[in-house]
């Protein structure tokens, strides 16, 4: 069994808004292991990015607030340590890459400068020349051609794929234990996406970090993740290893998501006449129904789901496979 790096238990994150208190993340628990990738899938507003930001303690407070739970990193609860001490962990032990590489790089500094800054903060013993050499080394690691020249360029001189490589170089500069990737390829074209995902896989094999891959693309999940957690309205509704999840989805929402991907069957060339869909839309977090959050869109919803028995609770139905549903699909 790989080393457990991160253990999140019963995480609750709330936001104060003009319309009242909103629970963006509700009782979320998961683990991240060394050398493994955990996928967090969900639609916009499902709480996946908020979960990631909570681990980094980057939830703006106010309006946000981590209202409960623990986030243990190698046995130490990150929620207990003073915010100032978080700096020695952020970017050093746990690093993050974001969706839009242009807005997360500073346009007025060269990319070399921005990578060197990481060393300045976390490895202050390094000399200036060492920092530069290490920055060049990082750029080489992420496959940027002629890094000695690129190091003096500004973000606008690089393409989207190159910028994301720079972001990855920055995040991996201190060899973190955990890399949180929040939709790292959503803004990129498919051929570039393939390059970046391949690169992340290769670097994980070399450096052995645990990755949290946040995405809405089930294709990316299937190709890169070992374990998956599906989020809906702030809750994890199903979690399993990737093959089980795609092979035997138990929650109607997971099943619906997988089926609604247009697929081409290369062997027959026949396509389904209509795409199976999930009816309706994600309910507003301000106005969640009583009982199961998915009841209005669910074909197997019964009175049980509509509030009589409270919310469904995430329960294990097979080894390593948990689902929160009163009527799971069954094997």
């Amino acid at each position, binding site marked *: 069994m790989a080393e457990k790096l991160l253990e999140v238990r019963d995480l609750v994150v709330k936001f104060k808004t003009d319309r009242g208190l909103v629970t963006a993340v509700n009782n979320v628990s998961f683990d991240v292991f060394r050398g493994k990738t955990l996928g967090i899938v969900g639609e916009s507003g499902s709480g996946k990015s908020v979960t990631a930001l909570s681990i980094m303690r980057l939830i703006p407070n106010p309006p946000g607030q981590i209202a409960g739970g623990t986030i243990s990193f190698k046995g130490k609860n990150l929620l207990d340590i003073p915010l100032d001490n978080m700096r020695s962990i952020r970017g050093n032990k746990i690093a993050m890459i974001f969706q839009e590489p242009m807005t997360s790089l500073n346009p007025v500094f060269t990319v070399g400068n921005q990578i060197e800054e990481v060393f300045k903060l976390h490895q202050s013993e390094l000399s200036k020349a060492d920092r530069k050499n290490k920055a060049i080394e990082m750029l080489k690691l992420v496959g940027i051609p002629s890094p000695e020249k690129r190091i003096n360029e500004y973000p606008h001189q690089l393409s989207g794929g190159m910028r994301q490589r720079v972001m990855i170089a920055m995040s991996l500069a201190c060899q973190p234990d955990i890399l949180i990737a929040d939709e790292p390829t959503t803004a990129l074209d*498919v051929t*570039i996406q393939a390059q970046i995902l391949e690169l992340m896989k290769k670097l994980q094999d070399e450096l052995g970090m645990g990755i949290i891959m946040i995405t809405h693309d089930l294709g990316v999940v*299937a190709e890169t993740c070992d374990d998956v957690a599906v989020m809906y309205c702030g809750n994890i509704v199903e979690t399993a290893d990737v093959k089980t999840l795609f092979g035997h989805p138990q929650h109607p929402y997971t099943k619906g*998501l997988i089926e609604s991907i*247009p697929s081409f069957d290369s062997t027959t060339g026949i396509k389904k006449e209509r795409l199976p869909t*999930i*009816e309706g839309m994600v309910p507003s977090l301000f106005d969640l129904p009583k009982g199961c959050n998915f009841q209005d869109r669910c074909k197997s919803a019964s009175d049980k789901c509509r509030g009589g028995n409270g919310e469904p609770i995430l329960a294990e139905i097979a080894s390593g496979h948990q689902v929160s549903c009163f009527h799971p699909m069954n094997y």
Partner: protein
Amino acid sequence: MSDYLLEVKGLTKRFPIKGGLLGREVGAVNAVNNVSFSIKRGETLGLVGESGCGKTTLGRSLLRLIEPSAGQVLFGGQDITKFDALQMREIRRKMQIIFQDPYASLNPRMTIGSILSEPMEIHGLFLGRTERQNRLYQLLDQVQLPKDALNKYPHEFSGGQRQRVCIARALAVEPEFIVCDEPVSALDVSVQAQVVNLLMDLQSELKLTYLFIAHDLKVVEYISNRVAVMYLGNMIEVAESSELYGGARHPYTKALFSAIPKPNPNIHMDRILLEGDIPSPMNPPTGCHFHPRCWKVTDQCKAAYPAVTAQSQTHEYRCHNPI
């Protein structure tokens, strides 16, 4: 009447680059370069390619929202590039467009009712009060929105519902041809499928013809009868969608399809990983624009741009060393 609703011949859009003290032209980008294709009545032609390949420019120049630099656009046999403003307004009733971002393409200060009425107002359709009201209800019904939507504002709707409003607005003037420019890219997965189904239902109900632009190959392949692939302003391959997936001849098409992550953890395909980035269209490579990234490149590819090879009536490609 010909089978083809739309025929495009040698369409080119050139954007000059101004520079220097006097604002002289220092170069040009051929965003769309000598593209020819045709779309049959009732057919959906999918148009795919990566960002900057010219697919949106092509879509817009068909409606002359961007003025093409050269070439012909024959709509129902008439060359609309020669039309004056008045004729253009009339023909636009038959050609509509749906944009990518339903948050940006609806005026936030107008109710859904006035958004949907405006195109009919402009074209003088359904003028009577009750007639207009019935038409509005009919449109909402067609895109499966509730009747009370008419008095609401765009911010009261979700992304998927807004895109339904955009579709209803395009349908308001009873068009024959709709350019769908990335209509589902901004939507969540579960909503995407709903809108794709809606577009397909409307097509069979109203006998519409679509040009469906998207970078999501799975959606394009699903909705289209034929698919055209663009790279740096050129159309490099066109084929029946069922044929293109398995039988792509152009290496770029093959690589593009192999790059899509498959939603099945049990399949591990041999992926063709393309090296490098898309070159700048300001300064495209000589010969075949794809040659610096191609694994089948020969000297011929560096020297001359490949001509169109027609493999069958429906399958054409531009490549010196096809697969």
